[in-house]
């Protein structure tokens, strides 16, 4: 969290510059006034059949975009163009009622981040929405973080809703998902990157007619070969579910058990450490306590 706020505040200069640009452009075209929302979509994978599909979080991100009034919604996919499987999935996204999806044409082995960054520096989106992590492949969930850092935007993880966007004031109000169905309202400066949580509104049905009518536009991108060649040798296996921690409920009565089951997780034990050495020690102690080391 600290890192994100940090990046957002340090890049303020760049942002105002961007805003300034917008103001200048606004004079020329009224449409520039509207909020530019860009949703990054990936090719998902059904957990049981392993078939490509709309990624669940990405589809929710589109749903959020479609429900925002007065915005310009762009949907973008970064990956190899003219791939049959990819196109079927992109059509599924189009079926939600989108006129167009842009494909940043990036060969399989190339790094899509550089292409995305350069694309976004040109197009200046106000809001970039992505899923939390991809449904296949590396699935590290790093892309939104790295992207926000490179673009100098704030990152809000796990949102469920965009409540309002005030482009003039340069702020947006978001709802963020917390454990146990809780929500937190956050106010964030435009532009920003947000990842969409599974708790967001389920995506609308993909209609075949709209899917067939929607256009897939290929945009050529300057792709640089990925710096990390190792991943070509990686062997991908299904993730193992993390073992659940046993919860010892000492409650004697039904009411106590009910409380234990419904009470929200209380942090409480955390403390703020500023000294690097102390922080490292605390982490090491925790890891040994948990028998990780």
């Amino acid at each position, binding site marked *: 969290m600290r890192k994100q706020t940090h990046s957002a505040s340090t890049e303020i200069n760049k942002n105002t510059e961007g805003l300034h640009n917008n103001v200048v452009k606004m004079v020329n075209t009224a449409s520039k006034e509207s909020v530019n929302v860009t949703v990054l979509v990936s090719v998902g994978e059904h957990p*049981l*059949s392993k078939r490509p599909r709309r990624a669940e979080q990405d589809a929710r991100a589109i749903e959020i975009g479609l429900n925002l009034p007065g915005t310009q919604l762009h949907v973008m996919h970064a990956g190899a163009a003219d791939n049959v499987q990819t196109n079927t999935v992109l059509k*599924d996204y189009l079926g*939600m009622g989108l006129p167009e999806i842009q494909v940043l044409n990036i060969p399989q082995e190339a790094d899509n981040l550089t292409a995305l960054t350069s694309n976004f520096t040109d197009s200046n989106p106000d809001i970039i929405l992505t899923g939390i992590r991809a449904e296949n492949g590396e699935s590290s969930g790093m892309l939104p973080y790295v992207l926000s850092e490179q673009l100098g935007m704030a990152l809000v993880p796990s949102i469920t809703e965009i409540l309002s966007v005030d482009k003039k004031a340069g702020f947006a109000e978001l709802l963020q998902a917390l454990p146990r169905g809780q929500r937190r309202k956050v106010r964030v400066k435009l532009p920003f990157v947000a990842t969409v949580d599974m708790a967001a509104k389920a995506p609308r049905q993909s*209609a075949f007619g709209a899917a067939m009518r929607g256009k897939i536009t290929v945009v050529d991108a300057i792709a640089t070969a990925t710096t990390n060649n190792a991943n070509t040798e990686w062997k991908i296996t299904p993730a193992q579910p993390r073992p659940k921690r046993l919860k010892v409920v000492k409650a004697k009565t039904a009411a106590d058990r009910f409380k234990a089951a419904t009470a929200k997780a209380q942090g409480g034990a955390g403390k703020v450490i500023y000294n690097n050495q102390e922080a490292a020690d605390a982490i090491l102690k925790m890891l040994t306590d948990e028998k990780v080391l």
Partner: protein
Amino acid sequence: MFADDFLPSVLFVLLLVSVLLTLVGAGRRVRLWRQGQASTVHWAGLLSIPRRYLVDLHHVVASDKYISNTHVATAGGFVLTTILVLSIYLFGISGPVLNYALLASSALMFIGAVFVFLRRRNPPPNLSKGPWSRLPYSLLTYASSFFILSLPATGLLPTNTGGWLLAVVLLIGITWGVGEMYLGMAWGGPMKHAFAGALHLGFHRRQERFGGGRSTGLKSINLESIHLETGKLGVEKPEDFKWNQLLSFDACVECGRCEKACPAFAAGQPLNPKKLIQDMVVGMAGGSDAQFAGSPYPGVQAGTHKGGAIIPIVNVLVPSETVWSCTTCRACVQECPMMIEHVDAIVDMRRFETLEKGQTPGKGAELLENLKTTDNPNGYAPNSRMNWAADQNLPIFGQQVEQADVLLWIGDAAFDMRNQRTLRAMVSLLRAANVDFAVLGDSECDSGDPARRLGDEATFQRLAKTNIATMAQYKFKHIVTADPHAFHCLKNEYGDFGGNYDVYHHTGFFAELVKSQKLSLSTDKALSLTYHDPCYLGRYNGEYDAPRYLLEAMGISIKEMERSKTKARCCGGGGGAPITDIPGTQRIPDMRMEDAKATKADIIAVGCPQCSLMLEGVVEPRPQVKDIAELMLDALVLDTQTLDAQILGKQVLEEETAVDTKLSAVNLEPTAAKVVNVKVSHKITSTADV
């Protein structure tokens, strides 16, 4: 004397004007129909109209003898009278023969009209009021006026009887009669049904239905050739129907037989097939449903819905819940004397909702998504499709065999514990009859039935084409399945995509095995049992006898429900209705269970996995629900030959066991247990979980 000259000349003018006006009206009506989309024009059908009226239409009407006789008298009398009246008074062809003929025909019509009148004194709620209540009087007036008119002409009464008074009365009567009968026919009165109905019989979209044929498969959309920029998928507005569908709507006589048969209407869901058809007429001709004089959609106030040829139907003229309440049971189509295709119209509108708007209600969207990603409606892992048969050693196409006599189509019952019992019973029966069969295993996909009924033609076609391609790799003579929905798709709907097969429902196949004595059933079970006809087996495929034959072969005398065979009430499970789940005042399966309880039977035999689920979902106490395959396995008698074969088979297997002891030992257990059983009593005594 004066009145005598005066009447014919006035009549001439009157008839001339009304015939001309009728022709103008008819032209306008034809224009309304032509707003629809192009469809094959079956000109030859026009020649068959009389035969179709007398044979096919009356075949349906005849289930109510009263009204069929009444209609023959009235309609026959009317047509004859009209021809004679026009010849005599318009074309001036006269002669005593014609006059006597007119006398007779108008008398005939009068008798018919009297019966119409009697029927209409206390009309049941399914009949429309409004202009339809006026019709018997108009019929009586028309018939009696011409009867009285021809009395002097035949010389039975002296000319000039009644003088001016009668002449004026007759003139008024004839004007009324001619107005209702001729003008009403072309300008949208109740008599419209005669004009539109006759043409509809000729131009019917499913010509195969006449002459005892059957045509129940949905019409497919050619997804490859459709221009998506200009064309649209499914029906949004009345003008998107085919022209002959629009014509068919105009043929409706508002008899309400469809309403009486409709399970969704009875369950208080917002659907009345009769009003739906009338709403389509409103949409085609423009206006509102305020004129409708029948029962409304349950729970929906009628009178405020406007329609027009270029106004969207769903949610303007017709609530979307109406379109989604239908179980596609075809009871309305079966009952409709005018042979109107309600299900086609409903699915056409659903197609637009799903394919263009993406608004399949309830769990519809989820089901369609599951079909896309896993090929089964519930989203189970495709490679778990054969898990139910882990202990069955089924030969699988492409693994153990490349050809077999029978391809056993498993269907989505594979994923359902209740219906797995039926599947196991079916496998045991096939083995007992030494049938050479194999299954497709994990490469079988859902037949596409739920997708198609929910309007997702694209998913249906993908599934159909995938299944056809899979089956093309293997050689087999027949397909056998326990699922009437898959049966219907494979038999009637895959043909459009190049899949033509010899498909049996398991009851049909087993009936042949029993007839040829490959299976013998004990007759000592005195079960108190009733049989529920699945819609997709009965009305869709005309199979009413095989299940009954099998039950009787077990010595059971079926306690038939009041609604059985063609009139059977749906279990509520078809057409994706459990998925869209439109609320009503009661549940369809509960009503069906009441039907069954009324027979006092202990068991309700079914032949469909969907029916099993819907009926078993009814709270106890209720009759037990058993598939015919399960009942048959209970009653199966193994003769010594089969027994030897089985034991022999067991020995062969035992030799294999030596090689792979651990593996086949597990697999063998059920077989071994069965054979022990047989040795004791020469028949299998329990199906519980063989």
